[in-house]
């Protein structure tokens, strides 16, 4: 009896493993085909046979890396991503510290409104931003689109950091203050080094938010400050089908995304829901 149930258990486990890997294969196929198409020639892509992966080539990569539009987009995406990440992490960490360490009137209201701001649809803001940026002359500038990206990254970082910040014992700061260190001194010299892991997580996710962003870039940039996603969309827009190049470009954009997400398994749920989801 016992042996029979053990055999059944093993059989069930094998069955589940088979089903699980089948689901995984179906689920990852669209990603795999994107990556593979980057190494296929357009003529082979357009001939169908989606399961035939021979005659791979780096031609699409060569073309897309020579493509001035994509190179500019990539450069802009990196600059905008780093700038908006830097600003958001600095400003967000300060605000998060303010919320975590002080009691003041309106504290709850302020904290929760940051959370709500994070969830607002971009389309509700982008029209005003377009008019404002046009009037201020910062449409299609790196500064303008960076500022637009801080609109979702600052509230995001504040709530992503809160659990990291509230977990720190305040004894460290108190000791430093007894030694005569000022509040800002405590924050920058004592507190930030302690929460460095949290800052790294926040920086990675903020960068990815900016890296993946499409709508603001579509509407608030033109030729000068356009980002890589806009350049990829451009590759798809023309009458000549350049799937190979678009997929090569897409794969290049995917590299940091997958490195970070696979490297940060532990923090994925926190990163996606940012803000102490109970339970």
């Amino acid at each position, binding site marked *: 009896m016992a042996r029979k149930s053990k055999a059944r258990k093993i059989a069930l486990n094998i069955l589940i493993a088979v089903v699980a890997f089948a689901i995984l294969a179906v689920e990852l196929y669209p990603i795999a085909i994107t990556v593979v198409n980057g190494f296929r020639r357009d003529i082979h892509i357009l001939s169908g046979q989606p399961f035939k992966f021979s005659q791979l080539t780096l031609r699409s990569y060569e073309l897309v890396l020579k493509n001035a539009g994509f190179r500019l987009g990539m450069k802009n995406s990196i600059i905008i991503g780093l700038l908006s990440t830097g600003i958001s992490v600095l400003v967000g960490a300060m*605000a998060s510290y303010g919320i975590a360490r002080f009691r003041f009137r309106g504290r709850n209201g302020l904290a929760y409104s940051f959370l709500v701001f994070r969830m607002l649809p971009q389309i509700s803001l982008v029209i005003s931003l377009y008019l404002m940026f046009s009037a201020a002359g910062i449409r299609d500038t790196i500064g303008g689109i960076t500022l637009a990206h801080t609109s979702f990254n600052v509230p995001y970082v504040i709530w992503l950091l809160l659990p990291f910040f509230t977990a720190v014992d305040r004894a460290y700061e108190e000791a430093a203050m007894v030694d005569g260190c000022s509040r800002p001194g405590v924050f920058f010299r004592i507190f930030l080094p302690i929460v460095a892991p949290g800052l790294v997580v926040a920086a990675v996710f903020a960068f990815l938010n900016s890296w993946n962003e*499409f709508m603001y870039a579509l509407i608030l940039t033109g030729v000068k400050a356009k980002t890589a996603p806009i350049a990829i969309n451009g590759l798809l827009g023309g009458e000549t089908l350049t799937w190979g190049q678009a997929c090569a470009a*897409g794969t290049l954009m995917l590299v940091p995304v997958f490195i970070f997400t696979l490297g940060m398994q532990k923090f994925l749920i926190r990163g996606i829901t940012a803000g102490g989801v109970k339970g």
Partner: protein
Amino acid sequence: MSSRKPVTDSPRAGRPEGKARTRAPFLFLAPAILIVFAVLIFPIIFSLFVSTWDWPLSEGAGIRRFVGLGNYTALTRDPEFWNSLKLQLGFIFIAIPIELLFGFSAALLLNREFFGSRIVRSLLLLPVFFLPILSGMTWRFMLQPRYGPLNALLISLGAPEITWLGNPSTAYAAIIIQDIWRMWPFMFMLLYAGLTAIPQELMEAAEIDGAGYWRRLGSVTIPLMIPTILTAILLRIIDALRVFSEVYVMTEGGPGSATMLFSLYTQRQAFGYQKVGMASAMAIFLLIVSIVFALTLVRRNMSLDVLEEKAGG
């Protein structure tokens, strides 16, 4: 440990900080408040203002004119507005339940150790982090009539070739399929985390009481999972209300306006028809709906006090 009390300011009372002490939180919060004001609060107020004007995008398209609530009443008479609202609601009501079903089933299936279970669980999340525009792009490719893999598969099974993105109803199905593909693993991720948090003793107790798998599922697992499921649905609704880039890359709202979801129609109003006032009215409408859902989520699920208790406990 005396410092474990949920007191937030320095408990060392009597330090000669005086005014600096009350100003301190503001100094830390000021930059964030400034940014939020500049790129969130002011644009919202400005949108409200613009939504009461007939406001052409460019000078050549006419003159600005105050119309009060005219844009809002005009929207109620605009069939395209109702169409986009209908498509948006359909998108939410079709995609999210299916994502929930897939995600929950997968969470139940994968909530055990088997050969490769960890790899499956982590790789399954990749679509969630796949860039939305790449998701739109790859599905556009998958659904191409002659060379798209999905059609190739269907044809090999003897089905007729479908011009997915050229046909209104199949294009609408396509954007939903795309969303389900990308987001059911998100449901899986949250629900799996919820499942692993169910105390093992409860399951064992039910098993000892003679409850079979389905019985345990119905009377222990699902009731305990309801809060997590509601949270996951709320997060998905808030996210689905803002869907734009995937659909824009896949269909640009077409063919005709078959996939013109709310954000896409708003964008079309502003930058296609150049009616910024009308578009702002739509933006405000969507904003209010989103705030309602966001507040519901925040009230249900987010708590500063809980964060602090966790930290202190």
